[in-house]
C-alpha cells in the first residue's frame, strides 16, 4: 500500500513537470513582447520591465527560466503578479468558494444522479427508465453555458427563485443554482452509470444467491446489488470532484462566482502569466492527488483490487 502510493506519487512527477512546462511555455515563450498590453493601454515602465525580466529570468532560455520557476514552486513560492499581488494569497482567497461550489455540485450528482439512476435501473424498460435515458441524453447535449444562461434567465431573473448572480456572498443557498448547472453534465453521466451498473448487477449470480438465501427484496437490492453497483459510480464522482476543484470558468463566469475559475479566466484574458501558471499548477496537482485518492478508495471498496 505505502509502496503503491509512493510509486504513484513518483509517476506523477513527470506529468506535473510536463503539464506546467507546457502551460509555462505557452504563456511566456510566445513570439512578441511579453509585456505588450500588460500595463493597461500604456507601455510598461522600463524599470518595471527590468524588474520582472530579472525576477522571472525572462532573458534566459525557456527551459532554464522554467526550471527556476519550478524550483520556486517547490519552496511554496508562487510568485507575484504584475500588479504585485501574491499568487498564493489570491489562490487561497478563491479556493474556499470553489470548494464549496464543487461540494454543492457533488451533492446534486449524488442526490439526483444516483437517485434517478437507481429508479431507472430497477425498472429497466419502464416509462421512468426511458424518461431518465432521454433526459440525460438531452442534458448531455446542451452545453453548460446554455444551461447556465437559460436557468439564470428563468429561475434567476424571471421568476426570482434563486439569486441570478452570486457576487461577494458565496453562501450555500446562493450557490445552489450555479452548483446545479455545474453538476448537470456529470449528473447525467452518474444517472446513466448507476442505471447500467445496477441493471447489470441485478442479474449477477451473487444477487440470485442472496434471493436463494431467503433475503428480503429490500436487502437483496439495497445491500447485495447496490454495494457492487455503486463502486464505479463513486469512482466517477470522486474523479469528477477532482476536476471540479479546478474551478469552473464558464459557470463561475455566468453566475459571477468569485472562485478559482473566475480568477484563472481573468488572468488568462489579462495575459497574467504568473497567475495562470501558478493556478494551473495547483489545479493539476489537486486533480492528480484526488485521482490517486479515488484509486485508493476504489481498492477499499472492491477487495478484489489490490494495491499491495
Amino acid at each position, binding site marked *: 500500500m505505502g509502496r503503491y502510493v509512493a510509486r504513484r506519487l513518483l509517476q506523477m512527477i*513527470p*506529468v*506535473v513537470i*510536463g*503539464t506546467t512546462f*507546457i*502551460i509555462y511555455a*505557452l*504563456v511566456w515563450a*510566445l513570439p512578441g513582447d511579453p509585456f505588450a498590453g500588460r500595463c493597461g493601454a500604456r507601455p510598461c515602465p522600463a524599470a518595471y520591465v527590468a524588474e520582472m525580466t530579472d525576477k522571472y529570468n525572462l532573458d534566459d532560455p525557456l527551459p532554464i527560466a522554467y526550471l527556476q520557476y519550478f524550483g520556486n514552486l517547490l519552496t511554496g513560492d508562487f510568485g507575484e503578479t504584475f500588479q504585485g499581488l501574491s499568487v498564493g494569497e489570491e489562490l487561497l482567497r478563491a479556493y474556499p468558494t470553489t470548494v464549496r461550489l*464543487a461540494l454543492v*455540485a457533488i451533492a446534486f450528482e449524488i442526490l439526483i444522479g444516483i437517485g434517478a439512476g437507481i429508479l431507472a435501473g430497477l425498472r429497466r424498460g419502464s416509462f421512468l427508465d426511458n424518461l431518465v435515458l432521454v433526459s440525460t*441524453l*438531452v442534458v*448531455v*447535449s*446542451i*452545453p*453548460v*453555458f*446554455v444551461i447556465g*444562461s*437559460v436557468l*439564470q*434567465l428563468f429561475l434567476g*431573473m424571471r421568476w426570482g427563485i434563486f439569486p441570478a448572480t452570486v457576487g461577494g456572498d458565496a453562501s450555500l443557498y446562493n450557490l445552489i443554482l450555479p452548483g446545479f*448547472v*455545474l453538476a448537470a*453534465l*456529470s449528473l447525467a*453521466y452518474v444517472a446513466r452509470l448507476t442505471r447500467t451498473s445496477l441493471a447489470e448487477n441485478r442479474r449477477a449470480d451473487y444477487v440470485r444467491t442472496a434471493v436463494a438465501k431467503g433475503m428480503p427484496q429490500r436487502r437483496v437490492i439495497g445491500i447485495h446489488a447496490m454495494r457492487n453497483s455503486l463502486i*464505479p459510480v463513486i469512482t*466517477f464522482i470522486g474523479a*469528477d470532484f477532482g*476536476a*471540479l*476543484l*479546478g*474551478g*469552473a*470558468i*464558464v*459557470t463561475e*463566469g455566468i453566475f459571477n462566482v468569485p472562485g478559482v*475559475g473566475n480568477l*484563472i*479566466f481573468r488572468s*488568462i*484574458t489579462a*495575459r497574467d502569466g504568473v497567475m*495562470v501558471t501558478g493556478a*494551473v499548477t495547483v*489545479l*493539476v496537482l489537486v*486533480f*492528480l492527488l484526488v485521482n490517486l485518492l479515488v484509486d485508493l478508495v476504489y481498492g477499499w471498496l472492491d477487495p478484489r483490487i489490490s494495491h499491495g
Partner: protein
Amino acid sequence: MADPTPPVVAQAEAPETTETTVRTLGRDAWHDLVRKPTFVVSAVLFVFFVTIAIAPGLFTSLSPTDCDLALSRQGPSSAAWFGYDNNGCDVYTHTIYGARASIMVGVLTAIGVLLIGGITGTIAGFYGRATDTVVSRLGDIFFGIPLLLGALIVLVSFPGGADTPELVTISKVVLALAALGWPQIMRITRSSVLQVRSADYVQAARALGAGGVRMILKHIVPNSIAPVIVVATIAIGGYIAAEATLSFLGVGLQPPVVSWGLAISRAQDYVRTSPHMLLFPASALSLCVLAFIMLGDAIRDALDPKLR
C-alpha cells in the same frame, strides 16, 4: 476546468474490439441499426445539419449580412420566425448560417484528433515497451490539462482580429482543440490495438514474418478502428460544444464569422429583454450536439453485443 468538458465517453464505455465485433459491423450491426429509433432520428438530424452546413442558401433567402438596425431585437413574428438580434440581423438566417462554422470545427477537430491520437495510439499499442511508455506519459501530460483551459490559453496567446481570414480563425480553434483532445483517442486506440494485437490471426501473421507497417495497415487498423470511430463521432458533439463555449467566452471564433457560439455570446447581454436571441441558436446548437452523441451511441450499442 470541470464545467464545459465536452461530453466524451469514458474509456470503459467504448465497445471492445474483437474480430467478431468488427465483422458484425458489416452485417448484423447495420441490420440492427436501421431498426433502432435513436439511430434513425440521429441519422436524419445528422443529414439535416450537414445539408444546412453545406448549402445554407437552400433554407433561407436572406444572407447573414442583411441586417437592419431599425429592426434591432424585435421578437419573433410571422415575418421573422426567430426574431432579430441586437444588430437587426435575422436570427433564423444567422442560426442557419451558423451551422457551417460550428460543424466544420467539430468535424475538423475530430479528424485532427483521429490523426494524432490514432497514429500515436497505434504505435504505442503495436510496439509496446518503451515506445508505449513515452507515448502514454505524453498523453497523461496533455490529458492533465483541461480541454477548455488549455484551448483558452492557446487562443489568448495567439489572438486574432476582425481582419483575420475566416479560415484562419477556424483553423486556430481546431488546432487548439485537437492539440489538447488527442490523448483521449490515443488511449482508446491503444487499448483497442492491444486487444487486436494479441488475437490469434495477428500472432500468426507475425510468426509468418509480416512486417510492421504492412501489418499495421492490413490487420491492426481495420480491426481496431471501430471503437475509435464511435468515440470520435460522439466527440464531434463535444468539440462543437467546446467551440461554442470558447466563442461564448470571446476567444473562439470572431466576427464576421457566423457561429452559434457567437450568437449565444451576443445574446448574453440582452437575455432579460430578448430571450429569443439566446433560445434559438442555443436550441440549434444543442440539437446538433445531440445528433452526434446519439449517432455515436447508437453505433456503439449496435457494435457491443453485451448491451443488446
